[in-house]
């Protein structure tokens, strides 16, 4: 329970960053933190007390494995996060080239 809550605090730090920071790179960082928090949450809910990694070993029977599904889903989610970050960085680089700044208030003024 306390672990879940700490994880949501991480989520909220990222949310705060996205909502309040005026710098494009900071916003991308905020989104990254949000993604980390969600991924972490997914893995946390699949953890089993005293569990083992979901990889079978030769000649031993493993009974208490952690839930493998969240791990498979998070693997997908990490890739999606990477894809989003790469795309946003590309947009950010183009914006810098066109406007000469990373500050969204300045960008809005320049756009008119």
């Amino acid at each position, binding site marked *: 329970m306390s672990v879940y809550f700490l994880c949501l605090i991480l989520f909220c730090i990222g949310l705060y960053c996205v909502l309040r920071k005026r710098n494009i790179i900071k916003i991308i960082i905020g989104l990254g933190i949000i993604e980390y928090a969600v991924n972490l949450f997914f893995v946390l*809910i699949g953890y089993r007390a005293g569990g083992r990694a979901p990889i079978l070993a030769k000649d031993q029977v493993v009974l208490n494995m952690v839930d493998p599904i969240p791990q498979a889903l998070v693997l997908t989610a990490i890739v*999606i996060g990477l894809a989003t970050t790469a795309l946003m960085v590309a*947009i950010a680089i*183009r914006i810098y080239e066109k406007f000469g700044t990373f500050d969204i208030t300045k960008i809005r003024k320049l*756009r008119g």
Partner: protein
Amino acid sequence: MNHNLLPLYVIIPLGAAFLISLFGKISKRICDCLANLATFFLLGLSLLAAVYKPLTGILVYKVGGWIPPIGICLVLDGLTSFMLVTVNLVSFLVTIYSISYMEKYTDKWKFYTLFMLMLAGMNGIIITGDLFNLFVFLEIASIASYALVAFGTEREELEASFKYAVMGSVASSFILLGIALLYSYTSTLNMADISRALDIKGISPIISFIAVLFLAGFGLKAALVPFHAWLPDAHPSAPAPISAMLSGIFIKTLGVYALCRIFFNILGISQNILFIFIILGIISQIVGAILAIAQNDIKRMFAYSSISQIGYIIFALGIGTPLAILGGLFHLFNHAIFKALLFLNSGAIEYSTGSRNLKSLGGLNSRLPVTASTSLIGSMSIAGIPPLNGFWSKLIIIIAAIQAGYFGFALIAILVSIVTLAYYLKFMGFTFFGKLDTALLRIKEVPLSMRLSMLILAIICVLGGLLLIPQFRPFLESAANVLLSGKGYAGIVFGAVK
């Protein structure tokens, strides 16, 4: 209709995207052919799904041969085939339009690749029966649309795309957090299985928390009013075919369809949620319409109008009676058609005059006869003038609201409809009537492919009302019945799995 056709809705656009990225660099004609062939086959397949219904009304396909709670399943029911027809019809006409329109941009093959990926994402969302799979395809469609909005790589486009990407990513995170909570609570990802598991567990605060997360996430994707800030920038910035796709079907698939599926069929609908839908719908209608009047940029005006019309759809779904849901879905179809038509018209105007500012246009009636007549039909249809399709769907929604006892809201809907008429008259007056500017004397009508797709959309607008006659009505009714069956969805899906 065979089981084995179900994965094709995703395989065809994906395969087309990969092939275009490989061979498209060689010649533009190859891209045109591949993209149009792919959308043509998709349209044929979705019409097939709508015409040849299975006897039970539902088809379930087990991907990889795994039985549903273990593997992913694809589900084709009435709502799915309705959405598939809408999406693939619009995208087929839009690809025809793009043949000529996209000549103005560099690297056409990148456009077509991203377009096909976006289409694959939307079809994937519609056809899937698994919650996480829905998220994955939602991300494909979203990421492709972020890139497509910035396709012109000019200042406003990049800025709009960035804003859209930030909002969209936050929305995706909310949705993923909701899915994580739902997984933890029910320990499954299959939609039907979740629905069944929630039935056993009963109501608890966590369901309302999940509902709030999904409402925020999908509401952002659907641009409902507190979450609409990205749409008026993003939709006008995109190239015209993409604006038509985004406003016409994208916000409906990612927003309205997903909201309906999750709230009606999985979480289960309650009076509170229906009331939230009504309030969101009414606010969206009013705010969208009021902001639209003040605009002088054609595409921006249409974008605000989309917010207003999405409000109508959500309002109708929120009423929750069978007639209202039928009307809402009918309006969804109609709005997809006429909003796509109007955005294509705005693209045609921009193509020939190079401007989309109402102040600098005028008198185009004589120069662009096809564009003028089709946009007249589109505008009158969205404003609800009989006998065009927009009139019938709005009429049904208003009658349903009165039947359900929401007199005040029905009155607001009528007033918003009048305001809609006002700003579309403004658009028609400033663009096509009045004095022709001397700078615009030498403009010519747009190329054949653009005229063709606009004409077909206008014809569908005129004939759209026919969907209500008894011969065609099952198309809408079977879609509405899926939503009305509510939590019965789980039983239907598991009944269809052999």
